Each structure stands twice: as structure tokens, then as C-alpha cells.
């Protein structure tokens, strides 16, 4: 039975749950079954947020298994790295260049790792790695909040069987009216970024 597994990871406040919601709804829009799962509660306190999304003819488990994510969307460098072991061999890593150093670093000898560390580790699993300067690109578009839409655009480019119209329809439905245009632009920009591997 064919199943598409997504894992979206980030830090509380980054819009991880919304991005995962959009992915689930794009699955449904194509007439597939879809489930998503995450843990709420502590996430608001700057904690780790992980959301599982699955598409398929019939989805039973709302959680994906280790090493089976077709797409790992890391909205932040460390949180992308923390869940690399969910990525399927040959799967796609979409990693944002966003860095949010956890407060635990201030009183430890540990350093925030360079993105290269995560990328090098990912190369052991897959060649399909897309590293996107999403925060910088979003800022250039005039709205930092569209960084996630850029990532979704890149994701859509990696899923050639899915008509981009499905993505845009859901995104337009889920963002505030006044931000529709900038999200459209962010999505198109993301699609361009996502074609380069």
C-alpha cells in the first residue's frame, strides 16, 4: 500500500502545526486519506515541536515509523538534525537556515552546531538535500512569516505528481486575507528553490 510520510519539525512559535495542517489538507484535496499528529502542551514554552503527516489510500497510524519519512521539513537547523533518523534512505530533507539557539546553551560548553553538521549527517541517508535560506528570502519578500510558505513551495517542487494548484488553494485558504499575495510569491519562490538539488 503506497503511503507518503512527512515529518515537520521546528520550535514553538514557528508555525510548525500550521505547515503540517496545510500538508495534510493538500493530501485530502487530492482525494487521499490523510492523518496528522503532534503533541501540544509544552510547545509554547520554546520547546521542540514535531508534527507527523501521512497520505495514503487508507491511513491507520497517525505516527510515522523511524527511517520512513519521505520528506523531512526542518524549519530550524538543530530541529531538522534532531529528527534525521526519521528520514527514509533516499528521502528528501528540506532544511531551513533558521537558527534558534536554545537557552540551554548559555550555561553549557556546548555550541550551536553549524548547519553543515546536519547536512553532512543527512548525506549518510540521502543525496536529496535542499538547504534554503528561508528567513532571509522571506525578509526580502517583506514578511518573515512566509518562511514556511517558501519551504512548502520547495516541498511542492519535489512532488511533481501533485498539481501545485492544490498547494496554492490550501495555502490561500489558511493565511490571512492581506497576506495572500506575499504567500503566493513565497510559494513560487520556494518552488524555484526546490527544483535545485
Amino acid at each position, binding site marked *: 500500500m503506497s503511503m507518503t510520510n512527512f515529518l515537520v519539525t521546528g520550535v514553538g512559535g514557528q508555525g510548525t502545526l500550521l505547515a503540517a495542517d496545510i500538508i*495534510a489538507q493538500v493530501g485530502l484535496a487530492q482525494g487521499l486519506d490523510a*492523518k496528522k499528529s503532534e503533541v501540544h502542551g509544552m510547545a509554547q514554552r*520554546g520547546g521542540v515541536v514535531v508534527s507527523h503527516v501521512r497520505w495514503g489510500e487508507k491511513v*491507520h*497510524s497517525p505516527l510515522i*515509523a523511524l527511517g520512513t519519512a519521505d520528506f523531512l521539513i526542518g524549519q530550524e537547523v538543530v*530541529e531538522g538534525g534532531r529528527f534525521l533518523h526519521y528520514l527514509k534512505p533516499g528521502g528528501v530533507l528540506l532544511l531551513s537556515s533558521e537558527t534558534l539557539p*536554545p*537557552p540551554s546553551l548559555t550555561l553549557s560548553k556546548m555550541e*550551536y552546531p553549524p548547519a553543515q553538521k546536519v547536512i553532512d549527517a543527512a548525506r549518510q541517508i540521502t543525496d536529496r538535500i535542499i538547504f534554503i535560506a528561508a528567513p532571509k528570502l522571506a525578509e526580502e519578500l517583506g514578511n518573515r512569516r512566509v518562511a514556511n510558505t517558501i519551504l512548502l513551495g520547495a516541498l511542492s517542487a519535489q512532488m511533481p505528481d501533485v498539481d501545485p494548484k492544490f498547494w496554492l488553494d490550501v495555502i490561500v485558504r489558511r493565511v490571512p486575507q492581506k497576506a495572500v499575495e506575499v504567500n503566493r510569491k513565497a510559494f513560487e519562490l520556494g518552488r524555484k528553490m526546490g527544483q535545485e538539488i
Partner: protein
Amino acid sequence: MEKALLSGNEAIARGAWEAGAEVAAAYPGTPSTEILQAFATFDDVYAEWSANEKVALDVAVGAAYAGKRALAAMKHVGLNVASEVLFYSSYTGINAGLVIVTADDPGMHSSQNEQDNRNYARFAKVPMLEPSDSQEAKDFTILAYELSEEYDTPVMIRSTTRVSHAKSLVALGERTVHPQRKYERNPAKYVMIPSNARGRHPVIEERIRKLREWAETAEINRIVWGDRKLGIISAGAAYNYAREVFPNASFLKLGMAWPLPERLIREFAAGVEQLIVVEELDPFIEDWVRRLGIQVRGKDIFPMVGEFTLDVVRESAEKAGLLPPSGRKPAPPLADLPPRPPVMCAGCGHRDVFWILRKLKVVVNSDIGCYSLAVLPPLDTTDTIGCMGASIGVASGMTIAGLGKFRGRPRRNVAVIGDSTFFHTGLPALASAVYNQTPVTVIVLDNRNTGMTGHQGNPASGDTLQGRPGKRIDIAEVARAMGVEYVATVESRDWPALEKAIREALDFPGPAVVVSHDICVFREHYTREPYRIIEDACNGCTLCFRIGCPAIMKSKVIDVESGRPKAYIDPAQCVGCGQCYDVCARQAIEPGAPIEFNL
């Protein structure tokens, strides 16, 4: 038919609304909170945050007695608080339908234990339905109201984190409006004095017998025949994993957790070569099957501890030889990444109080809420946390026991409790301390909302769930009215006043209460722009790191003399509270400019 992507919690709320429920009450608690939040948005309903789960369930019982379909929702440990209501309402039965939702938390994502609340159904002799996904969550809730009225019983819905917080497709239906049932006085049924209760007990035994009969043929308990070599009984979230790990096996999917059927299980067991039960937490189904004299395996294969995942179920099954070894070896997690535990927000007023308590070196008997994060470094200033409201009683006991000596010096203790927790179960403990004149010191962290679960209103805020006019209750006035003779009210940002009040309270010969107004940055704002490190003055002493503010981090600039990184304040995260300014010993922090508000 319109379909929507709903969480299990949203689906339960939708089901209650479609079933015509009109009254709902709850106390927030992960993973149950969104049930009431979703229900409150529907037309023609009343929904409230009650002061605790017991009150919430009493309110729902009262509404059901009065003839309106009612809902109460809580997390698993909330049902401990409401359990007395569960037991009497089982005896009295209801009038209009009453559904009680318990949302369990296997894996303890945000709880103090992982109790399996299916045990409550058996214990209180109340039927319990257990959905596996959002569609079932909605359908089972509607069915629960029908069963409730047909069998004159509260009906429980048991969800878990992976049902409550997973989203899947749900077919939406219309609301069925039920005329209010007539309330008729019936003391033999509704007044549980011993002589009446004795009359009720046989009634509920007969009721559970009839419900077991219903369970034998209920559609929600269904057999899916597959390969007869392996038969699996499963329910709830565990069913989803089992279906995927054993795609060809035969299944008995139990939608009703209690009472469990007998003939149906015998039929299934007789039809398969080997029988196993896949269930999270306790061997609840397994024990029942075994009691029927049927050979079965379960907890010798699958863990009793923690949350199930596909990996847990698959690996356990492979180890037991139920599946051929897949040989699949997922990569190990990437090592040496900085951890990211949850932290108190930048500007959180709780930090002020724990900073002072740390300085005073008192034993801290704390409680449930955002402030439980003070147990983590760098604040690391908490000795005990048990359950909602435990702080005051435990602190009283420690005070009575004298705490003895600590490293040759007398060591004193304080209870620390949030405003919502104070109204939840702190009040009786304070009454007890006043009555017995236990000289316990109680610090109430009053940030006027229920923070941890998402900033809900409570008696300390006066904000109500549906925006109806409420009334704020002043905690200091409550303490005075209860006879506490030392009551101080302080602003947490005023450290000298806060420390003075806590010291006076510790020295006071009777019960003493300090109400600290802690700003919650989700409700109130500071009036300064972000603070800034004066780089020339900072020598990297790390003192400001020790308050654990997420806005303060190491600078890339290294102090030449000390060789340590200087501090840096992230202007995007700093809310201008000034805690770092107060702690800095070198005047190396510059306050932000006052913010001009255009009112």
C-alpha cells in the same frame, strides 16, 4: 456530505453538539483542553471552565438531571479529582444524556503519571467507549448519548494523546435538537443516602449486565477476518499501529472498553490459531480474556510502560517471533545536538519569585503549572511536585514535621502555587492550615490565567470561556477572609518588597500568604523597549545567564580579561522586564526606553 479535518478533541466536541448537548464544563488539562474550547464556539450551547474537574462534572451532572444533554471533559488525572462524582452519578443515573471524556496521556507528554483510565469504567461500573480516530471520536460521542439515555447511566469516552491530538477526516452531520426532558423529583434515585444507595446498587449491577449483552452484538465491536493464524484484539490508538504492523491478521476491534463482551471474544478466539492483545498501558482487555479461560498473550510481548508507536509494536512483535525480523535498522539519532527543554518565557514573573526563593535557600513544595519549569536548571529551585493543589498540604506536613536541621541550620519551607491551582484544590488545604493554625508559608503566583494549558480564564482572571461577564476573585481577600493573619500582596518585579514579604511570612507564627502578582506576557505587557548589554562593562560573569531567560544568550564577543563570552540580549525575544538588569552586578545592562502608549 461535508467533511473536515478534525482533531479527536474537535470531533468529540462536534459529536456532542450534533447529539444536541447544551451544557459542557471542564477544567483545562493536556490533552483534553481543546474539547471545551471547540464546543464553546458552537451556537446554542453553554460552556464553562469550572474551578476544577470535580465541579465541572457536578455541573454536567446537574444539567443532565435537569433534562439537558451535558458534557464534562478532563485529562486522565482530572478524573481522579472528579472520581467521587463519577461514582455517585453511576448510582443515581441521569435524566438527559451525560458523557464524560477522559483524555489519557500514555508516555506522559505533559502529565505526572500515565494511569490507564479504562480501570475507572470497571471500578465505577460505567460504560466506556474508546475511539481510534476522529471519525470514531465523533460517532462514538453521539452513540454515548444514546446509550446514556437508554441505560440511564453516565457514559465515558476514553481518548489518548494520539487520538485527541491527531487529525483525520470526519463526515459532518446536522445537530439534532432534543426538547428538554422533564425533571421530576425522585429522592430514591437522586438522593444517595445509604438507604437509597442500597436500592441503587442492584440496579447498576443489572445495568452493566445488560450493557455487556449489548456489547456482544454492538457494531463498534467488530471482527475483521484475515489470516486465521494470528488473531489480534485491540482498541483505541493501539489498533492503528497493530493494523499497520499486521496487515493480514484477523482483528477483533473493540470500540467499547467496558463492559467487555464474552461470547464475541470466545467466537473470535475460537476462529484463530494464536490470540494476542495489543493494548497500551495496562493489560485491561488481556486480564478479561484470561478470566474467560482463554489462552492469550499480551503484556509478555508489548510494553506496559510508555506510549506505543509503530516502532514499539513492530519491534516487540519481531522479538516475540510474531513477525519475521525485518532487518531494518534505522539510523541512530544525530548525537551532540543541544537539548531544547521548555523554559519559562522571557519576562515571566514566576522567574522573579524562584530567583528570590533560590537566594533564601528554602525547601520549595511546588505545584502544577508553568512554574513547575523552575525545577530545571538554571533555576533548579523545587523540592516536591505531586498533583494539583498538593503544595499547601505537603508544605503543611513538612512544617509540622519541623524539617529538622539542614547542614546545621534550621531550614524552612514554602508552598508555591499558581492562581488557577489555588482555586482548583489549594483552597481546602489553606482552610485546613488556618483551622489547625499550621504556620505554613504559602506563596501564590498570581498571573491571572491558566498558563500551561494555553492561557485560559479562571476565577483569578474573571474571564469566562464564552466571553460572558464573569467576576474576578481577589486571592489576598480570600486568604484574609479565611482567617490568615499575615497576607502580603506584592509585584513580582519589585524584588526588595517580594523578599521582605517572603521573609516576614517565614517568620510569622501562623499561616502566612504572599500573593505575588506575576506578569504573564501572554496577558500583560511591560512598558520598556528591549534591554541592551553595555559591551564595555560586561565581563562575561554569567550571572544574568543564571536567571534562565531565553532572550539572553552568549555573545560572539569574548571578554579579553576573563576569556569568557559576554552576554547578548536578543531584541526579538526581550520583552523589557528588567530581570537581567536587576541581577547584573556590573551595571552592564541598559534599560530599554519607556514605550509611549497612544491610548
